[in-house]
Structure formats: structure tokens, C-alpha cells
């Protein structure tokens, strides 16, 4: 699956975009986040305060119980501050 990071999540993760292949046990956004944190370093830091992380799966805002699968585009970002 393709992962995108925006704003300070991008800065903390140290990467804007990557392709990942998490284990098969990762089937939801919440499980993906846990796996991300387990990678340590900038990823652990980016997801340290989960309350500040928003997620879109295939360009749609979703909750953390939303399923994720191979081929999905998953974007992590802080709360929106446009307008």
C-alpha cells in the first residue's frame, strides 16, 4: 500500500511518500498505525499523539476502524487548517 504524509507528520516521519507491505494481521487503519509506531524513529514520533492524526483511505476521510488493503492509498495528516 502507498502511504502519504502531510504537514508536520511528513516532517516527523522524514518522508513524504512510501510503499509499505505490512504483515497480513494489519487489516484496519488502527492496526496500521500500531505497526507504523513499531517501526520506531520518526514514525514512532509522528504517531505519538494519535489524537492529532487524521487519515484518508483512497482520498476519503475515514475513522481508525476503516479497513486497509494492498493497493490502497493511505494518507496521514494533522487536522486541517485551510481556508
Amino acid at each position, binding site marked *: 500500500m502507498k502511504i502519504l504524509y*502531510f*504537514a*508536520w507528520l511528513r516532517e516527523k516521519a522524514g518522508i513524504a511518500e512510501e510503499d509499505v507491505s505490512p504483515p497480513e494481521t494489519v487489516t484496519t487503519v488502527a492496526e496500521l498505525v500500531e505497526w507504523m509506531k513499531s517501526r520506531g524513529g520518526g514514525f514512532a514520533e509522528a504517531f505519538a499523539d494519535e489524537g492529532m492524526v487524521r487519515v*484518508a483511505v483512497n482520498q476519503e476521510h475515514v475513522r481508525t476502524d476503516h479497513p486497509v488493503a494492498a493497493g490502497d492509498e493511505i494518507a496521514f*495528516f*494533522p487536522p*486541517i*487548517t*485551510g*481556508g
Partner: protein
Amino acid sequence: MIRVQAEDFDVGRELEKLSDGNHGVGGVCSFVGLVRDIAGDKTIKAMTLEHYPEMTEPALAKIEAEAHDRWPLEETLIIHRYGRLEPGDRIVLVAAASAHREAAFEACHFLIDWLKTQAPFWKLEETPDGGQWVDARSSDGRAAERWLADKPQDKPQDKPQDKPKGKPGAAE
């Protein structure tokens, strides 16, 4: 109409398009958001707007469609810029054209409130202490939420002739 662009826009020309050739438009309400030179107690030299291009246009299209579902509108417009902007620069223009002024006002207000919580943009401010990502404001969340209470239970097949219930304002 939706546009996401780095360049500035001509407000007068954009608003004119909303009623051009359509003599059913009685009013056009618009809101222009500008970069301020102060945020809280900090001086802002510039800000950079980052966005998620693949998601931005669909998100804006959804916000616009929602406005058309809720009010009898002739036309709507959302233009949002990205990139580096300086104080006084225009960031965003939202506008709604309707036969009736209340619908134009409410739809325009709705567009900017929802855009602030639904459109994937993030602001990085250049302050004397360095770059700082702008925190989302809880007031923006509340401003967007108040429209949820008004959401019609059943979306009408045609444009609604009645204004949404629970909102202020007299019928036109």
C-alpha cells in the same frame, strides 16, 4: 465551480461569472480570506499552504454539491490557493449566487465553514521563531458542526424551495 491554484485570482471577474447571462440571480454573497500579519501574539512574515492534490478537488466538489443540495443556488465558486503567500495576499474565495439573498448568505457561510474542516490544506507560518504549523482551531470545528444539526434527513429530489430549518434568517 472549483479551482485549486498557486496563482492569485481576480475577485471581480470571478464573481461576475456567477451571474453572467443568468438574470435569475438576485444576489451573490462572497467571502475572501486573506493572510494576516499577526497570529496570536506572533508576527507572520509569510505562510506556506500545503495540500493533498489528489484529494483536494474531490473534497471541494463534495462541499459544493452539499451546498447545492441544501439551498436553491444558481451557481457556486470555490477557489483555494496553495504555496507561499505573504500578508495581504488572498488565500481563498468562496461565493454563492441565488435568486434569494438568505440562500446566498447561508450557502456562502457554509462553504467556508466546511472548507476549513474538510478540505485537505495545512498552513505553515513563518514566524520570528521559525516555521510553525498552524493548529486547527476548535472554533472552526464548532463552526462546521453547527451545519450538521441542520442537515436535511431526506435529501429532496429537486432543489429545496424551503430554507433549512433551524437556521437564522427570514424567508426572502
